[in-house]
């Protein structure tokens, strides 16, 4: 160990820490201050629309984890599938979004909310009507530009947000 620059290097370093002391901390008090998340966020649940879904099962085939279970019965009168059961095990789901991408009829959305922890593993399995879109289960704009444009714009740290500190 040699003081090549007689300790000046150390003092220069200290000026940097001092300058950061006087700078505004880049921090956000989460529960009170909520920043807008990305419009294409892949929340940990799926949002399914019953009218658009034709029961083709492409989403179930492409899911790498096999988290989607779909049971359909043939409706002879107007010659199409009736979706009896559509069940997603969000415990298995790794939120990769391949199902939303693969759905030919845009019937599937990723969830926009991310606070979806449950107390029991059984509650992770959501099926049929629990999957429909609703105010507290908004759909994210992932692979749906029209839904994305309606969501609030993401707040970026690059824009130097200066928020009120509690």
């Amino acid at each position, binding site marked *: 160990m040699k003081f090549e620059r007689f300790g000046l290097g150390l003092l220069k*370093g200290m000026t940097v820490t001092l300058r950061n002391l006087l700078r505004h901390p880049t921090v956000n008090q989460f529960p009170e201050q909520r920043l807008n998340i990305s419009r294409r966020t892949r929340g940990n649940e799926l949002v399914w629309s019953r009218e658009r879904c034709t029961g083709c099962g492409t989403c179930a085939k492409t899911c790498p984890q096999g988290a989607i279970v779909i049971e359909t019965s043939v409706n002879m009168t107007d010659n199409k599938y009736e979706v009896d059961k559509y069940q997603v095990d969000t415990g298995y789901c790794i939120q990769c979004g391949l199902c939303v991408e693969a759905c030919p009829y845009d019937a599937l959305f990723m969830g926009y909310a991310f606070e979806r922890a449950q107390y029991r593993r059984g509650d992770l399995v959501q099926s049929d009507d629990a999957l429909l879109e609703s105010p507290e289960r908004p759909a994210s704009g992932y692979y749906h530009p029209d839904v994305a444009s309606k969501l609030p714009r993401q707040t970026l740290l690059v824009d130097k947000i200066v928020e009120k500190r509690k």
Partner: protein
Amino acid sequence: MTFWPGNYWWHWLFYAAVIIVFVLLMVMGAIYFERRGLGRMQSRLGPNRTGPFGLLQPVADAVKVLLKENLVPDKADKLVHWLAPVVAFAPVLMIFAVIPFQNGALLADLNIGILFIVAVSSVATIGVFMAGWGSSNKYSLLGAMRNVAAVVSYEMPLALSVVATVLVAGTMSMNGIVQGQTIPYILLQPLGFLIFFAAGCAEINRSPFDLMEADQELVAGFHTEYSGMKFAMFYLVEYAEAIAISAIITTLFLSGWKGPWLTPWLWFIIKVFVVFFLMIWTRATFPRVRIDQLMAFAWKFLFPLALINLFVTAAQVLVWPDGLPWYVIFINFAIMGILILAWSKLFKLGLGRSEV
């Protein structure tokens, strides 16, 4: 002139209470001050949830640690493991006995005050080594061995820089030193201040020299196997020692309780926090030094500089027997600059890789 008219026992009881309350409050304040200061230097906030502005965070920590279970490893040496925090904490409290909060306001105005401090402060190492050895854990043994090696080699520069100040002050009693400081000794003794600050930080394992509980390497150093109340004691020891070293620096170099408008003991506390902020600042910026560099830094850099500083001060005291004039400040600063320049150019400190 004792501050309190009562007889000896009243005086002793009052100051014992003052010291214990002072140490605990200052430790709580130091913990909070450090966590907020360190946080703000790292562009984050630091505790602000418990109580207004997070002021109750140290209290919350203390309560949490008290409720924690007190684990003792089964192969540990029970008695040594149990006694280590006590042996580590007692000397730190004893140091405060001779530190003047105000003119004459100290438990015992010993005429050998600073000698008592230097002697007592090395007893704490025994407690740390007992902790390292008692908890029969390889990491804590490594940490304890490092602590013993560091403290032994940093006693010398610490004592020598104190001797230089005593030469200038003429008396060893802490109160006398403060009264003798018409010009704060930091200006008369700049090199002494730097050496004392560096050696003090190494002694209480703070800032760049915190090898004893280097959490990156030795998990938690000597207090790895401690939990519950005993861990709280070691946490207390660490911050109490930091406050003790800051208090000694304020008394020796920053003219203790002297100050223009405010009440004297408030000046004392402000100066203690200023020196403590310096420690936080170095802790936030510098990486850690390796153990052999720590040794080399003590013996090859601090020790010779302390010796030369002692000779220079002795010569100056001989030339001006009745107190040093003000222009000596520039001479001393020039000497400090030259010495640091010379030493950092000449000496390669610390050996690299040992052939194995």
